[in-house]
C-alpha cells in the first residue's frame, strides 16, 4: 500500500459521505417503501395510513432518542435498559395517577425521574466501575424488572388519565395526533442539544476519542454519566407517552422497543463505534423500521415468513450503512 492509495481511499470515503447522506437515504427509502406498499395493497397509501405510521414511528423515535446519545458517546456505548425503563415509567404513571387528570404532571415527573435514576446508576457503573455498557445496562434491566415486580406484586393496577390519551394518541389538530407534535418538538430540542450546546460538542468529542477529549479539557466521566442519565430520562418520557397510546401496562410493554431502538439509530447512519451521528437520522430510521413492519403486516404473510423477510431486510439495510472501516485503511 502506498501513499496515493491512502489518499484515494480517504477521498472515496469523503465522497461517499457527501453523496450518500445516510439519514437522507433512510428518509427517501421511507417514502419509496410507503408507495411500494400501495402496489401490495392499494388501501395502504392514504393520508390516514400515513398519519398512523408516523404516529407509531413517533413512539419508537422518542424511545430511541436516548439510545442515539449513548451510542454517539462511544466506548461501546449502548443502553439495553431502555425497554425496562419504558415499562417502569408507564407502570408508575398508571399506578400513581389512577386516571386523575390533575396528577398527569406528577406522572410525567415520576416517569422522567425514575428513568434518570436508572440512567445515573448505569452511568456510574459504566464510567466509574468500568463495567462494559452492554452488561451493565443488561444487569440494570434485571434490576428494573425486579423493582417492577416488587412494586406491583404481579398485578398492574391503575388507570390511564383520559386526558393523556386525548393529548397523545387521538387526533389533536388537523387530524394529527399530539404525539407527532411531541416528537417534532423533541427533534428540535435534540438538534439544539447535539449541535448548539457545550454538552453536545463534548459528547461528539468523547465519542471520537476519549483520550484526546480528556486532554482537551472535557470531563469525560461527567459527560458519560450525564449521557446515560439523559438516556434514562428520555426512555422514561417514552414510557409516559406510550402509556397514552397503549392505555394499559404489561410487563413486556417496553421490551418490543429495545432492539428496534438500536436498529433505528444504526439505520439512521449513527456509527455504533461512536462520534458520528444525528437524531434526525434516528427519526428517519424509526420511520423506515415502522414502515417495513407495517408493510409486512399489510402483506398478510405467515409470521414465520414475516420474521425471515424482516431479518433479511435489516441485513440489507445494515450492509448499506453499518459498514465498518476496512482493515486496510
Amino acid at each position, binding site marked *: 500500500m502506498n501513499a496515493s492509495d491512502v489518499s484515494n481511499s480517504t477521498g472515496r470515503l469523503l465522497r461517499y459521505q457527501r453523496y450518500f447522506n445516510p439519514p437522507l437515504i433512510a428518509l427517501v427509502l421511507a417514502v419509496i417503501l410507503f408507495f411500494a406498499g400501495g402496489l401490495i395493497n392499494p388501501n395502504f397509501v392514504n393520508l390516514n395510513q400515513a398519519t398512523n405510521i408516523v404516529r407509531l414511528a413517533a413512539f419508537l423515535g422518542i424511545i430511541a432518542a436516548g439510545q442515539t446519545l449513548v451510542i454517539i458517546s462511544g466506548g461501546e456505548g449502548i443502553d439495553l435498559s431502555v425497554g425496562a425503563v419504558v415499562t417502569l415509567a408507564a407502570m408508575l404513571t398508571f399506578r400513581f395517577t389512577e386516571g386523575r387528570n390533575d396528577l398527569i404532571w406528577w406522572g410525567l415527573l415520576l416517569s422522567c425521574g425514575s428513568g434518570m435514576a436508572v440512567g445515573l446508576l448505569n452511568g456510574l457503573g459504566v464510567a466509574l466501575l468500568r463495567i462494559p455498557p*452492554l452488561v451493565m445496562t443488561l*444487569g440494570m434491566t434485571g434490576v428494573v424488572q*425486579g423493582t417492577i*415486580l416488587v412494586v406491583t406484586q404481579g398485578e398492574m393496577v391503575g388507570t390511564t388519565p383520559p386526558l393523556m390519551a386525548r393529548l397523545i394518541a387521538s387526533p389533536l389538530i388537523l387530524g394529527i395526533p399530539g404525539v407527532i407534535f411531541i416528537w417534532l418538538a423533541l427533534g428540535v430540542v435534540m438538534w439544539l442539544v447535539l449541535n448548539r450546546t457545550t454538552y453536545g460538542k463534548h459528547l461528539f468529542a468523547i465519542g471520537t476519542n476519549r483520550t484526546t477529549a480528556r486532554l482537551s479539557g472535557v470531563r469525560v466521566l461527567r459527560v458519560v454519566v450525564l449521557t446515560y442519565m439523559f438516556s434514562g430520562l428520555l426512555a422514561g418520557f417514552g414510557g409516559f407517552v406510550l402509556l397514552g397510546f397503549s392505555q394499559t401496562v404489561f410487563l413486556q410493554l417496553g421490551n418490543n422497543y429495545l432492539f428496534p431502538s438500536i436498529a433505528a439509530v444504526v439505520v439512521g447512519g449513527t456509527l455504533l463505534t461512536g462520534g458520528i451521528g444525528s437524531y434526525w437520522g434516528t427519526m428517519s430510521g424509526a420511520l423506515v423500521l415502522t414502515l417495513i413492519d407495517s408493510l409486512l403486516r399489510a402483506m398478510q404473510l405467515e409470521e414465520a415468513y414475516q420474521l425471515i423477510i424482516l431479518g433479511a431486510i435489516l441485513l440489507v439495510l445494515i450492509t448499506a450503512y453499518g459498514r465498518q472501516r476496512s482493515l486496510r485503511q
Partner: protein
Amino acid sequence: MNSARLQYFFSRNTYIFSLLLLAVLLGVNSSLQDNLFELRVLNNSMRTLLPLILLAVGQALVVIGGGIDLSVGTMVSMLVAVLIKLIDAESGAGDIILAILAACGVGVLAGMLNGFAVAFLRLQPIVTTYATSFIFSGVALLLLPRPGGQIPTDLRRFYAQTPYGVPLSFYIIGILILIWLIIRSTRYAQYLFATGSNSQAAYTTGIPVRLVRLTTYVWAGFFAGLAATALTLSTGSGQANIGDNMTLDSIVAVVLGGTRLSGGKGGIAGAVIGVMILRVIRNVIFFADVPTWSQTLVNALIIIAALAGPGLLGLVRRVVKK
C-alpha cells in the same frame, strides 16, 4: 513466583476471580441446601445447565475474537426444531446421530452467515446478529409451528447417566476444557487472541484476521448445535422459541467468567464458571426463602455486584494512586 509471573498467570487465567466467587457462592448454597452435592440433585442441575454452558462456550470464542453474537439463542430454537423434525419416539441410534450432525451442520451454516457478514462485509456484530436472529426465529417457526415432538426414552436415560458416579455433563465439560487446553497452545489460538485484542495490528503482522473472525461465529453455530442437542435430550420435546432467552444469559455468563467484552482475553473455562455462578445465585435465592416477587430484583442485584467486583478493585486502586 515473582509479581511479573503472577501477573502473567492472572492475565492468562482470567477465570481465577470467578472461580473464587463461585466457591463462595457454592459454600453459601450448600449451607442452605444440604442435598446440593447429592448425586441425583447434582446430576439434575447439571443436566439442565449443560445447554447454556455449551452455548456460553461458543459465545466466549466469539467474544475473545472481538465480536458478539446476539443470535445464538434463536439459533438454539432453530436447531431444536431441526432435531425434533428428524427424531421421533422410535428413532434408532443411527438416525439420532445423523440428526445431531444435521443440527450441528445447520448451526455451522448459520454461523457462517453471521461470520461472513461481520468479517467480510464488515458489518457491526450487534446489529448483524440481531438481524439474523429474526431469520433463525422465522426458520424455527417454519419447521415447528406448534410445540411438540418426542424422543426415544432410551435417549433421555442415556443423557441422565452417571458413569462411575459422576454426571455425564462433567465428562463433556472435561473433554471441552481438555480440547481448549490443547487448542490454546496452537497458532490458531494465538491468531484468535491477537485478532481480538488489536485487529489492526494483527492484520499488519499477516494474521488472516477476517478468516479467524469468521471461524469464531462458525464455532458459535456449532456449539449452538450441541446446546440444542443437550436441550432436546433434557426436555424431550421442542418449541419454536425454546432457546430465545438463552442469548443474554450466555453473554452475562461469559463476562462473569472473566472474559473481557472488548476481546482478546478469556477462555472457555470462564464461560463454564460463569454459567454455574448464574445458576448458584438462583439456587441461593430460592433456598434463602426470598419472597417470590423479590427474587428477580435480588438476583439482578447480586449479578450487578458480581460484575462490579473487579471494577470496584480497579476504582480503589485508581483512587489510592492519586
